């Protein structure tokens, strides 16, 4: 989990610094939002990689899987 957080932070620094120099505020805000989603998804997955999958939930919802 620490590796994931470090990777996303590193990617953030790599991308946000040039964006900041160009004053692309919208891109920075969207980048931070996407980074938060990526981090949440990563932590959620790594916490329990064997939990019921998205497909499992969808198929259960439409009655295709027990």
């Amino acid at each position, binding site marked *: 989990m620490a590796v994931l957080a470090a*990777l*996303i932070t590193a*990617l*953030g620094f*790599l*991308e946000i610094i*040039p*964006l900041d120099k*160009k004053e*692309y505020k*919208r*891109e920075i805000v*969207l*980048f931070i939002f*996407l*980074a938060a*989603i*990526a981090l949440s*998804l*990563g932590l*959620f*997955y790594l916490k329990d*990689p*064997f939990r*019921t*999958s*998205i*497909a*499992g939930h*969808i*198929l259960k919802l*439409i009655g*295709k*899987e027990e």
Partner: protein
Amino acid sequence: MRNSQDKITIRQSMFVLTTIVFSPSVRFFPNYTARIAKQASWLAPFVAALIMLPMLFISVSIAKKYKDASFITVMDDICTKAVSRVITFLYILWLTLILALYVRYYAERLLTTILPNVDMLVFIIPMLILSAVVARKNAVVLARMSEIILPVITVFFVLCVIGVLPEVKIKNLTPISYLDALPVLYSSLGIIAIWSYMPFIFHFSSIISGKESIKKIGLQTLIAILFISFFSIATAVGVLGDSIIRLIPIPFFAVIKQLSLFDSIERIEAFIVSVWLLSDFVLITFFTIIALDIMKNMFKLTDPKPLAGIYTVIVFFISLYLVRSEFELKELSDTVIVYLNIAFGVIIPALIFIVGKVRKKL
């Protein structure tokens, strides 16, 4: 017609599309159509082509009025801005879902065919890094790559088809009667689901220029993908029969495995896996570029390319969390993704067109 900076021509976009369609065609079509239409499954691409023709004319009509504008601009004009933004957001979600699905399909295919017992991360991570790197450049790079990749795919596909043609048994493809009409129509949905990337790519990319020539080039593309789809189904079902094809996860691969040239060159299935990889790479990268392009138009960004890296990280985790087994992957594809593709690729653009006609905007 060509804007060499960061736009691709309509001809190049259709090259990309044909490359993209190759991978799902040979993986998905034979199995899906054989399960529903049995020995008549080879007729399904023709029915799909008939259904897709009106979509082509819808695209022509929109291109005439709005030239090279993106579909978001078209929707802003035809519907209200709020409705347009909601639909666009749904498109981003759908695109992310199918991207994750194709990343998973790419990994599962390698595991099933030539490299079992390998951690799938070994396949997924390099592919996504490569896609992010190319997506950070521009679509022109990928379009020019497709101009090289597509002829390679076509030559290899034609050689494979010629090689297996002597093995095709007519009794596996007949008899055909009026009773097959409904199953063929139903099975064509699976084909339309993949072909629907054509109107989607056309409408949703502001990276494509010269959209007014969609009629001629669109028809040529439709014929090309009809050719690929027909032969991938007809050879698979013709050689092994529908009862076997419906049980095999990658039927075309099984057929090619039986191919032997002059009893001396065998195991050429490794080549088809390489060709598949190229097709998957183009598919994953181009859909990433389109997703970034949609974000650019939706959030009024100046440059969406720096988002490529973080977006592929999201796709990476969704692809891991999407399914747990190949069974789930196939079931999700057959029962959900097919209909979602049709909804987003065909029904929504058609509805926008109808609303545009009613409101006299088109």
